[in-house]
């Protein structure tokens, strides 16, 4: 394999991982944008999404052709996680909205324990095989192998991001979300149903995390109830990298982090790839605390 081929191969792998990170990072960033809350339980929502998709996929692949099964699993996981995200906001975060910010962090940790252990009890503590009904089609393009699965990940992620961009920039709901991000109190005075809007934001972010979970399971073949923590932390890093609270930033940050890990693992050492991610995060935050595309001032206490 020549240098260029290795480079392109790592690019393809990094893009796949990056697309998944970006989908999860969007949830962190949307919620932070609206209420300045780091929802540390978001990684667990992603993990729950992957398990929901697993169940649906196992049930559906026997009955219907694979594209229908895949679509059914995706939509089912999205729906399930939307309800979960909405419920988390409604029953855990909303009652403590006026409390100090650290409290939300503790709540998130508690929620993470609950979700992780609920899944462990339901599905067992070991790795679960994730069925991948997508036929193994490979294309050799200039010596680089690209699979149908990778193309699917890129396609789904790109479509969802375009959809989200349209939702936020082109609809009344999105306008309300952007307004709430600017000033929650004024929006309330103007009659925007702020609580419902925040609930919808949680539901949307969680649906995207469910897609991330499904694609993650299909790409890597196994899932575990611990995945939410590691992948969630990475996706969160991606959100910060792009500028937390900034939607295009989360997409850029996710893809960048995926590429960074892909190239780091390919060229340097796979052991240290997690360190690269965090070193870049720390350096970036110290140099430009608002992230690559963020414009918020970083002095919220």
């Amino acid at each position, binding site marked *: 394999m020549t240098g260029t081929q290795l480079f392109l191969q790592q690019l393809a792998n990094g893009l796949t991982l990056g697309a998944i990170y970006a989908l999860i990072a969007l949830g962190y960033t949307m919620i932070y944008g609206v209420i*300045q809350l*780091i929802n540390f339980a978001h990684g667990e929502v992603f993990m729950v999404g992957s398990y929901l998709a697993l169940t649906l996929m196992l049930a559906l692949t026997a009955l219907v052709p694979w594209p229908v099964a895949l679509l059914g699993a995706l939509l089912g996981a999205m729906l399930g996680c939307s309800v979960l995200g909405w419920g988390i906001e409604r029953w*855990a975060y909303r*009652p*403590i909205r006026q*409390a*100090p*910010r*650290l*409290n*939300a*962090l*503790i*709540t998130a*940790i*508690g*929620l*993470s*324990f*609950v979700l*992780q*252990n*609920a899944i*462990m*009890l339901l599905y067992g503590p070991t790795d679960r095989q994730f069925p991948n009904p997508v036929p193994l089609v490979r294309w050799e393009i200039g010596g680089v192998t690209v699979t149908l699965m990778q193309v699917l990940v890129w396609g789904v992620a790109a479509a969802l991001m375009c959809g989200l961009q349209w939702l936020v920039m082109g609809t009344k709901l999105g306008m309300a979300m952007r307004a709430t991000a600017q000033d929650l109190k004024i929006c309330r005075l103007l009659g925007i149903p702020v609580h419902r809007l925040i609930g919808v934001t949680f539901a949307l972010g969680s649906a995207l995390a469910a897609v991330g979970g499904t694609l993650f399971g299909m790409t890597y073949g196994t899932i575990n109830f611990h995945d939410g*923590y590691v992948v969630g*932390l990475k996706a969160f*890093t991606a959100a*910060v990298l792009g500028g937390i609270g900034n939607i295009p930033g989360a997409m850029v940050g996710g893809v960048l982090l995926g590429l960074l890990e892909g190239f780091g693992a390919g060229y340097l050492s796979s*052991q*240290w790839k*997690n*360190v690269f991610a*965090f*070193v870049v*995060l*720390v350096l970036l*935050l*110290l140099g430009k*605390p608002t992230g690559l595309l963020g414009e918020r001032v*970083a*002095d*919220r*206490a």
Partner: protein
Amino acid sequence: MSAARAWSLGAAGALLLPLLHQDPYHLDVLTTVWLYSLLALGLNIIVGWAGLLHLGYAAFFAIGAYTYALLSVKLGCPFWLGIAPAMAAAALGAALVGTTALRVRGDYLAIVTLGFGEIVRISVTNLGPWTGGPNGVLGIGHPRLWTPHGVFDFGVASLPYYYLALAALLLVAGVCWRLERSRVARAWMAVREDEMVAACVGIPVPQMKLLAQACGGALAGLAGAIFAAKQGTVTPDSFDFVLSVMVLAMVVLGGRGSIRGAIVGALLLGALPELLRGANQYRMLIFGLCMVLMMRWRPQGFFGTRHGRTA
């Protein structure tokens, strides 16, 4: 009941307990609780008093544990001489993280410290030649005491470590109690309430922040050295992000800025999973629910006060 009497009763109870109850498993759980309390008291200085949100505290615990472990294994350093370097190394690490993170505040500080915590843990895992990599350091020396009857080796028994950790805790709690009423702690609290006002009345804000982090780090280093001596081995997975958030949860549940709160928080979070052992596989589920419900019904923690702006 006055605070002083409650303190004395609690301390006396903890000191006398092993005379009545010698089950090594229960003593081990309580020893862990005393170590958690040390960590919670240290983090309380950073988060509770100085108001700096820190999510990488386990890193300093790791630095302390590894410093003593390596001194013991490579140089044969006895435990009592290893404590000071362990505390100094952890304090230095904390001050270094603090120096680089002076520019950022609030959520961003939390993220930067989280990043540093992960960097330390992964580096320790990957620096195999020095730290033993994922297998950790083995064969760390146990503490020894020179008594009139000869040398007493702590070995692997539970009781000596129970008293060692308890003695350290009582000493540190006493120091914190004095510290709380000092000029330094009042300066920290002023920084916590309003940095700008604190600077205007002449408090050297950056120095006070670094001092808080170094003090907190030193306590984590002390806990780390005792932990390493007790275990005889240290591995990187003892120092993950979950430990950082657990210690933070102890501080918050007990009530930010409260010394007894930190100890009660450590007692609750350290002992609750053991008490729930009867509930078997449901225990962590119940534990998580308790944390969520606690934040909902008593957001200021057990001994916290409602007033005051906090991060």
